């Protein structure tokens, strides 16, 4: 079977997790793709750690407000009924458990629920930004990542080798191969995205993956370029 990296599958699957009224923080990069797949009848509240509740869609070119950005620095907007606050309030909301879900990109994630995404020593030091608080404080932490690095090595590990962003805080990993729950120091495959199979995933991942009894085969209908078939 040939692996074709597909971020859109990840975004679309994660978008299906949320229910109306839930408060969600989407990290920079891959997680921001999730927005475009939120079903129209699901009304979630996007929190952004730079101080906004009710982040709206990116403004049209030319109608940006330079006082409204998202946490990645891109132009943002606010929904009707949203509000702004300072960074201490924002992280009070995050650390205090008032955000239901955070979706973060990772460099590595391991079967103990550890996550590394803020530096590669000696090479790349973007810093943790809000990621450490988000992983620690949010009710459900979802790691969103392509299953494999460009080198072909899985980002899902037995044990992270990079400096950790948080210890044992990841609840769920969604890759372009499937949905994994982190329980009892093991990845538990809950959904397998066709055409991949549980056996193929296990064979290509250097981590302990338990296939749940009720593991479902799922077809997610997006192309790597974001177009629906």
């Amino acid at each position, binding site marked *: 079977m040939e692996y074709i990296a597909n971020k859109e599958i990840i975004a679309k699957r994660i978008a299906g997790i949320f229910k109306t009224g839930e408060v969600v923080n989407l990290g920079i990069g891959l997680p921001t793709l999730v927005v475009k797949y939120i079903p129209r009848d699901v009304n979630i509240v996007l929190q952004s750690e730079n101080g906004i509740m009710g982040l709206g869609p990116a403004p049209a070119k030319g109608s940006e407000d330079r006082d409204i950005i998202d946490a990645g620095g891109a132009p943002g907007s606010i929904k009707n009924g949203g509000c702004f606050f300072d*960074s201490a309030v924002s*992280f009070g909301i995050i650390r205090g458990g008032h955000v239901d879900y955070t979706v973060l990109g990772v460099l590595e994630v391991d079967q103990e629920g550890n996550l590394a995404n803020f530096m590669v020593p000696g090479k790349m030091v*973007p810093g943790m930004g809000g990621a450490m608080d988000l992983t620690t404080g949010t009710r459900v932490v979802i790691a969103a990542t392509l299953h494999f690095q460009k080198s072909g090595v899985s980002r899902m590990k037995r044990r992270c080798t990079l400096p950790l962003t948080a210890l044992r805080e990841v609840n769920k990993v969604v890759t372009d191969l499937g949905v994994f729950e982190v329980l009892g120091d093991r990845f538990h495959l809950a959904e397998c995205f066709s055409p991949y199979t549980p056996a193929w995933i296990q064979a290509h991942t250097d981590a302990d993956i338990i296939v749940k009894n009720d593991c479902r085969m799922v077809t997610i209908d997006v192309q790597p370029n974001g177009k629906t078939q």
Partner: protein
Amino acid sequence: MIVKPIISPKDAAGRIKEGESLMVGGFMGCGSPNTIIFALKEIGTKNLTLITNDTAIHDLNTGTITGVAHLIQIKLFKKIIASHIGSNQETQRQMLAGETEVELVPQGTLAEQVRAGGAGLGGFLTPTGVGTEVANGKQIILVAHRPFLLELPLKADVAIIKAKKADKAGNLVFNGTARNFNPLMATAAALVIAEVEEIVEIGEIDPNDVHTPSIFVDYLVKAEQPEL
């Protein structure tokens, strides 16, 4: 209320002295006191310690630079305390080359440290960073069997912040996500200089809508260049 002096950007920047610690508001350049930053760039005061959420943007390929990145480029800082330097390749380069000391702090911890500095707290216990490199050298305290890091307050000699509007007494109102660290830093520095887009008469701001009470602000600077 007392009327606060409105000073020139150059005068404002000149009040930041060599070797001092400097808080700079803003988040990825949004809500950044760019007029004062530009004046400080002209003066070139060195050996400062920078406390800021992030070091804005410096793309070494395209040459794009925003906000406080202008000051990092000319190496005004011996040390930088920030949560995120991912959009500033020059900061990362200086850090990896050992040219500038960079301390990376979780964003919520940094915000709370600045708040604690302003609010007279000796520190606070946060779950953030437990089990990571951030915990190195820090005291761990168990509360109800759960481990927390003891984080200490942060203060600075000077804070330069950016608001949308001030009245002449120095009450500040921020706009949108340009608020971010600005109101926190206003409480935590010995000298606070606020760059504002608009200065209105005392009484024109509803007392329920003030984000930063006037007593925190020492000087006002009229913003001259919203973009930098």
